[in-house]
């Protein structure tokens, strides 16, 4: 009985350790006045709604980024800028994606953050 209690405490401790550290998650945010969108891919993937979406498609020498918020607003941009393509390259399912666009539909910036505090997919 004593061993069982100790084992349960150990398992609880290990679980707590696995969940330790600062965590944050952000749904898809779209700003039309600011002409940008951002969100955490893992967090958005895990949300129960079937509406939100954010990510990029890379074709090697060009790419498109897109996002859809909870209200159903869809925004996207396209780029062949080498620096932006280099930013998109390390994008993964746990990344934070932040991109902007102009009136011509071109990406004005693409930022990708891979950090310990973003929610895993």
């Amino acid at each position, binding site marked *: 009985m004593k061993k069982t209690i100790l084992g349960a405490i150990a398992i609880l401790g290990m679980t707590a350790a696995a969940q330790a550290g600062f965590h944050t998650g952000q749904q898809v945010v779209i700003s039309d006045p600011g002409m940008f969108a951002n969100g955490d891919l893992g967090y958005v993937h895990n949300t129960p709604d079937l509406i939100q*979406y954010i990510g990029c498609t890379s074709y090697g020498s060009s790419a498109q980024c897109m996002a859809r918020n909870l209200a159903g607003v869809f925004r996207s941009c396209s780029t062949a800028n080498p620096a932006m393509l280099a930013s998109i390259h390390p994008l993964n399912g746990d990344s934070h994606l932040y991109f902007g666009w102009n009136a011509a*539909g071109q990406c004005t910036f693409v930022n990708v953050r891979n950090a310990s505090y973003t929610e895993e997919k």
Partner: protein
Amino acid sequence: MARIAVSITLAFLGTLAAVLLYERQAPAPVPVAGQQEMFERLDRLERAIIQIGARAQPEPATGPAVEVLTPPLPTPQDDARQSAIRTGNEIVDRAVGAARWTIEDATELAAATVSLDGTTRAELFARVSAAINADQLQVEAAARRF
């Protein structure tokens, strides 16, 4: 401007010379004092007119020959590129006209532009993005991953 001035001068001098020549050829019943000097002046004037006229003639071109550049003939690659761009624009135009972006449009555009360089391809996809961001295109769920 200088050429016009030379032309006016030449015309004036020419008229003057003609008048003086006429007077020279006309019989002068009464010798005029200093007439010989006038004739000499007239000769000098004629020579001056000839020299000025010679200077006013355009000099033949002596510079290097101008190379006439002809544009290179379009290659089959150029034709294929232009055809891909035209097709891509037609796909976007058609979708904007229908106010809908479907998975078929997305697939068709991706296939039509696969041979294009990144910049040109991005420009075509940017047209789609611009129309979407301006709420001119309703994006079908399946086409969101274009």
